[in-house]
């Protein structure tokens, strides 16, 4: 009996340890975002501030055009989320349920692209954009479509992998039954298979949204001041307000908020999406 108490105690201790690791930085982020500058830039910061300053959340929109960045990031992230999900659902389904020539090679190639260092293909990629502009007259650098294509492609290898694992768990009989009932392949896919894959789809949608919301390296080269994204915005903040960490943190909270709201509502799906998809070896 005593031994069991000991193990329960250890478990609680462990959980508290992990909670502290996660929650303290989050707390520090939020609390700093409502502090007065003088309470932030001091060697003796207070764990619980004596006064708070909500105006930080108004100030952040003034010097750095955060509103515009917000709009840019939203457009880019939602579009690449849409396209990445579409592409990954199709490709994942094909890789999971169909036996065709070169299937293994294609699957491996997708995984292998994860190994290509972004830093290696950033410059050639930029040069291709310039080439397209010079020969076809389509501007991609500093435009939404340029970034949307980029981010869509960045996440698809991983999202295809998740979707493929997910479709593997859905019995083939389901599709066959629909085919016998007279559906075409496409109808069977859309009407019968897709609805069962919703948790997986939500998972990959979320993942692709986060990738574009977060990306820094390619955004530094492929955006201009009109299309700059939030991820660069927070960096710009540190330059503009060399000493105003309270504003940097307020901007951080604003950047994090949409994703956190998304997640809170979709957590159930996200977890089950991972459970059946990503785990598979």
């Amino acid at each position, binding site marked *: 009996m005593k031994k069991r108490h000991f*193990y329960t105690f250890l478990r609680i201790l*462990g*959980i508290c340890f*992990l*909670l502290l690791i*996660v*929650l303290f*930085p*989050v707390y*520090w982020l939020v609390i700093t975002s409502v502090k007065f500058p003088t309470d932030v830039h*001091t*060697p003796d*910061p207070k764990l619980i501030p004596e006064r708070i300053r909500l105006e930080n959340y108004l100030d952040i929109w003034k010097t750095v055009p955060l509103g515009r960045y917000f709009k840019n990031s939203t457009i880019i992230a939602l579009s690449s989320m849409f396209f990445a999900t579409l592409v990954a659902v*199709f*490709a994942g389904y*094909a890789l999971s*349920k*169909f*036996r*065709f020539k070169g*299937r293994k090679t294609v699957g491996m*190639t997708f995984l292998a*692209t994860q*190994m*290509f*260092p*972004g*830093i*290696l*293909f950033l*410059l*050639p*990629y930029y*040069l*291709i954009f310039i080439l397209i502009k010079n020969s076809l007259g389509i501007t991609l650098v500093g435009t939404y479509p340029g970034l949307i294509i980029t981010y869509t*492609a960045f996440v698809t*290898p991983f999202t*295809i992998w998740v979707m493929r694992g997910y479709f593997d768990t859905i019995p083939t009989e389901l599709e066959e039954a629909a085919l016998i009932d007279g559906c075409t392949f*496409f109808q069977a896919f859309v009407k019968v298979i897709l609805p069962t894959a919703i948790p997986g789809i939500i998972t990959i949608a979320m993942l692709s949204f986060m990738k574009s*919301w*977060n990306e*820094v*390296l390619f955004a530094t080269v492929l955006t201009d001041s009109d299309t700059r994204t*939030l*991820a660069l915005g*927070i*960096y710009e903040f*540190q330059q503009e307000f060399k000493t105003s960490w309270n504003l940097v*943190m307020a901007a*951080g909270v604003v*950047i*994090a908020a949409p*994703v956190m709201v998304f*997640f809170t509502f979709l957590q159930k799906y996200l*977890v089950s999406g*991972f*459970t059946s998809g*990503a*785990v598979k*070896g």
Partner: protein
Amino acid sequence: MLNIEQKRSRFAVKLILPAILLSMFVHIIPTLWGIFISFRKLNIYYIRDWTSAPFVGLENYQRTMSSLSGVFWESLFYTMIFVVFSVIGCLFLGVLGAVLLNKDFPGRNIVRGIFLIPYILPGVVALTNLRFMLLQDWGIVNFVLRNLGLIQENISWLTGPMALVSIIIGNIWIRWPFWFITLLAGLQGISGDVYEAARVDGANPWQCFLKITLPALKPVIVILSVLTALWSFNNFNVPFILTGGSPSKQADILSINIWSRSFKNWDFGTGAAMSVVMMICMLLLIMLYIRVTRLEES
């Protein structure tokens, strides 16, 4: 008339074609082009008209290996430390979290949700926040350590040798929840009967963990390690944001080293050559890993 198999196969090709085209355009062609650039003397003078950049054979590679050798090998060395410790840290925290939350208890779903926060929080925000916490003068980390009497002088976490520790911590903090949730899913797949049987045989929880839990999780751990190693090896965000874009020698891991060679020194040829070597290193790493895990199995 096409038979059903041919029809199926045509349908599959249509489904997968967009993904292939996208990957060709963004990953494969630019990467091949990058390899091509690594044989050219492409610098600021030729960038306007990059087709005229002279072919220099292996000169860029020679420079990487010899005259830059100090810089390159050192950077590779620190990158390896970064990757290895990141994987170990994620493994530790991920397994710990998964094991602790495997058994149901009131509020488990809430705790699970909280554990996922670092993964959901945008990386730029999480890392900027960690940077702020680690600041030498105003950082809360130094404040706490000082008040606990563990240090006398403030540690400079973001510059000098400690920057390597900081980027490892930052990398682990944003990645371990992915391990946690995948491992938890793996654990839930182990039948409770196995543990029951072990307990009847007199095994203690630690023995159960070593003999049942770990072996069952091994395939998942292998995949997670490979993915984490790749993502860390390639990582740009963590060192870039934590060090504010100007890392010390110890935090100057390959991706950021190549970035500054290419976009600060405008020496794209050498940058590309370094990237190719980096890619080969990763390939070797993976092959070694697969070999080792296969050997253990047989």
